[in-house]
């Protein structure tokens, strides 16, 4: 017997497969709900890319078309954001991030499923990895000149110390904001839908009149679900775009 008591219970993780080992602690390899959904996302992406090619003919099936469009969109975004000569090198990373986050978001919208991108630790550490990785790239490429990123062009000399403090704060805040933007949207959307669902269930259970009247809030939840689908796509796109722009900052400095 399992009742959902709190709206936050949908984000609870359970261990599905445990490694019990005598000498080494292998609990890091336990398959939890999270791991299961990571595997599901991987399978979906791989099968989307393999099954839709119409047995490797030149023209893919109808399902291949959105994949091509996504690829094209991300390609153009990366080209527009990073530009220069190096944008192509970072396209695989950004496309992978986009596809992963998109599929994870969409899968999480299926009822009774688990929202990967609502796990704050996961998404924040992902954004930290991207932030630190792009910072290391910038240092490797420019050396100490990298700090010129913190002084905007055409700053009056007396304002330089203040601006450096502000810019470096905003640069550090990127590490949080990139992940928080995504995870808060997904978390808030799922919470909102579950809370509204619970309210609607209570409303329906009052009597027969409210059962019929429940269609109106039901339609509202339906609209919110459509909105959630839009948010799922927009947030993954925003994440990819911002990643591209952060990488651009450390590659070309302004």
């Amino acid at each position: 017997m399992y009742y959902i008591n709190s709206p936050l219970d949908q984000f609870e993780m359970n261990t599905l497969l445990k490694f019990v080992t005598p000498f080494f602690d292998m609990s890091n390899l336990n398959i939890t709900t999270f791991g299961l959904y990571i595997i599901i996302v991987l399978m979906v992406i791989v099968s989307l890319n393999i099954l839709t090619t119409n047995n490797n003919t030149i023209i893919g099936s109808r399902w291949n078309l959105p994949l091509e469009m996504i690829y094209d969109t991300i390609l153009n975004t990366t080209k527009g954001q990073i530009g220069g000569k190096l944008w192509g090198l970072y396209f695989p990373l950004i496309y992978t991030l986009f596809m992963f986050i998109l599929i994870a978001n969409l899968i999480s919208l299926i009822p009774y499923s688990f929202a990967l991108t609502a796990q704050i630790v996961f998404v924040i550490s992902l954004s930290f990895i991207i932030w630190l990785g792009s910072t290391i790239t910038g240092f490797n490429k420019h050396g100490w000149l990298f700090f010129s990123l913190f002084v905007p062009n055409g700053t009056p000399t007396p304002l330089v110390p203040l601006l450096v403090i502000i810019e470096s704060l905003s640069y550090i805040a990127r590490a949080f904001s990139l992940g928080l933007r995504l995870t808060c949207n997904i978390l808030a959307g799922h919470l909102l839908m579950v809370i509204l669902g619970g309210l609607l269930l209570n409303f329906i259970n009052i009597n027969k009149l409210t059962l019929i009247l429940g269609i109106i809030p039901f339609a509202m939840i339906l609209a919110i679900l459509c909105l959630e689908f839009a948010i799922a796509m927009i947030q993954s796109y925003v994440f990819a775009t911002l990643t591209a722009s952060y990488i651009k900052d450390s590659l070309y400095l302004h």
Partner: protein
Amino acid sequence: MLSLRSVALKSSVRPMLAVGARQAAIGARFYSTPAPQEPKDKATSIINALPGNSILSKTGILATSAAAAVYAISNELYVVNDETILVCTFLGFTTLIAKLLAPAYKDFADSRVKKVSEILNTSRTKHVDAVKERIESVSELKNVTETTKVLFDVSKETVELEAKAFELQQKVDLATEAKSVLDSWVRYEASIRKLQQRQIAESVIAKVQAELANPKFQDKVLQQSLTEVEQLFAKAK
């Protein structure tokens, strides 16, 4: 996601058709009393909406799913809670997508695929045509070896004829040379003979004149002419 949407698409197309048919029936009987076979129509429309061929299997599916739902809820295998509403909204969303977005997307994707395949096909036919054209242009030269052989023979013959002509030309040259040499000889000899004749003639004339100057001869000629004249006179007498 993938399978759910396709299933929703499959299952959602039929009931709407059935519902449309039923609504037409209602419109026809709008002012009449409710038709007695109305529940039966409804039942058949629901049955038609289900997958399967025979009525038995369709009603079987309906009955089993209803019984399963009732059993699951009553035995608390399935608990109706907040997520149930979300399941309903999700199903509504998938039907919305399947009804509204999927056909439009299908048209778009089909036209797109058609366009791309048309481009590919036209380029392929173009390529084939180009290759064919090239083959045709090349195939005009297919008996090129024979032509070259003939040309070679002709050139060989020409060379031979030229050699022969040169030989003949040389012969002709030699003959003309010889002829001119012989002619010059002939002219030389002729001039020499002329000279000799003139010398002889001159010597003879000189001798004759010397003879004429001799008085004995003059006498002899006179005597002779006198005798002739006498003879003539004697005849005349």
